[in-house]
């Protein structure tokens, strides 16, 4: 560890953060939401909420990726891109930021598995909330319909977290 840290890596001199590095995390969340525009015409909603996954991955990686209140406008963008009822992601994503702030205060140590567990709990809460909203909107889908997308989201989280980690290293020029 120490040895590799002392080693001079090629091409790292004079490389600082990229331009707009401050806004790249938020932009990547919007890009994640925009994946809903892919021309996939599915019979059932099996896919994870990619915007939310990106948001959780960034927030678990860094507490200061963006000010916490940015979750509201990012959620609004997600609602408009995905076509969910306006306000659903605004409330949900702000709630995610608040609960992860709380988790930061309560957890004394973190590792990979705890982050995955936190993400899984938030994904479960979000799927349950979306299920309730669908019921209020007149579509009371049976509860087990949220299981496939939930399991796919939880499995997809490490992948998204990996992409987000790579993006973070790239934007900071490391």
């Amino acid at each position: 560890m120490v040895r590799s840290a002392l080693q001079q890596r090629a091409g790292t001199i004079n490389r600082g953060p990229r331009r707009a590095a401050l806004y790249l995390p938020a932009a990547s969340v919007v890009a994640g939401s925009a994946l809903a525009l892919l021309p996939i015409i599915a019979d059932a909603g099996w896919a994870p909420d990619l915007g939310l996954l990106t948001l959780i991955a960034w927030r678990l990686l860094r507490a200061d990726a963006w000010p916490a209140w940015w979750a509201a406008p990012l959620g609004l963008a997600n609602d408009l891109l995905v076509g969910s009822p306006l306000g659903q992601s605004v409330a949900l994503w702000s709630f995610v930021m608040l609960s992860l702030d709380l988790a930061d205060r309560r957890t004394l140590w973190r590792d990979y598995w705890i982050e995955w567990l936190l993400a899984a709990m938030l994904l479960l809460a979000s799927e349950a909330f979306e299920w309730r909203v669908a019921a209020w909107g007149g579509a009371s889908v049976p509860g087990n319909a949220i299981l496939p997308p939930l399991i796919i989201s939880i499995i997809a989280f490490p992948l998204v977290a990996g992409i987000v980690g790579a993006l973070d290293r790239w934007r900071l020029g490391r």
Partner: protein
Amino acid sequence: MAVVPPPASRPGSSRKAQYGLFFGLIATIAGVLVGLVLLGLSLVAPQRYAALRGAALDLTAPISGSLRAVTTTIDGVANGTADYWDAARQNGELKRVNALLAQRIIQARAVQLENAQLKATLQLRERSTEPVATGRVVSSSFESVRRFAVLSVGSGDGVAIGMPVRAATGLIGRIVETGRFASRILLITDRANIVPAKLLRGGLPVLATGRGDGSLDVRPLEVGRNPFKVGDLLVTSGTGGLYPPLIPVARIVRLDDDGAVAVPLADPADASFAIVERPFEPLAEQAPAPPPPPPSPPKKLPTKAPA
């Protein structure tokens, strides 16, 4: 395992930093509340944000549309190649089917002629079924438990909320949001979409409700013996005035205790074109998306004679 550093909660003695954190917290809590209020409003009065959502549709549908064109082309090339590969066998089969259809057409013409004569004697007026617009289904809500799709025509083409959408093979859904160049369809497979239909065999009135997983729940309006058979076809009945009668809807694939599960005949993923039509009765056009009768009271609904 990494120890979480404490500074997020205690930024030291700087007043400015402390206030900054505090206001950030207040703003995030406000975000939750504003979101809940917005959500409540958009659930109670879905038309409130119609302009905003329509604008978002107009901005995003062209992206999906152009991507869809790419996938359709790739798909077409792949299928086309496969067709060449198998041309001789297909040719033989098509010749056989063609001969069969030629006979059927003659029979159908005779029936049509007879039908026209009968209608003339009854002095029934034909309703015009001229389509309002024709578009492509470009994307769907694959991230949500709701079943929506985006159609590449909007209010600029005459599309309005509440209009039924069909493909050549069957019913797809109805319009729930319009932008200038694009609109959103509530698919018949959505839980909130109830289609008044009837069995093609015997004309028994039924209600078809989406199950959210690409299939439909079919219930007879009259309680009693399960009237369905696997393979039965459903067509719209015209009850409720929204969907025109005699559009193919679904085929029964499985029976359960007091009803059946059916699969839609039109697959929006396969349909090259989706046709937007006028609501069957003009009254249905004025009220935005009139909900068809609820399935709970098991009494016979007044069925209208199909035109």
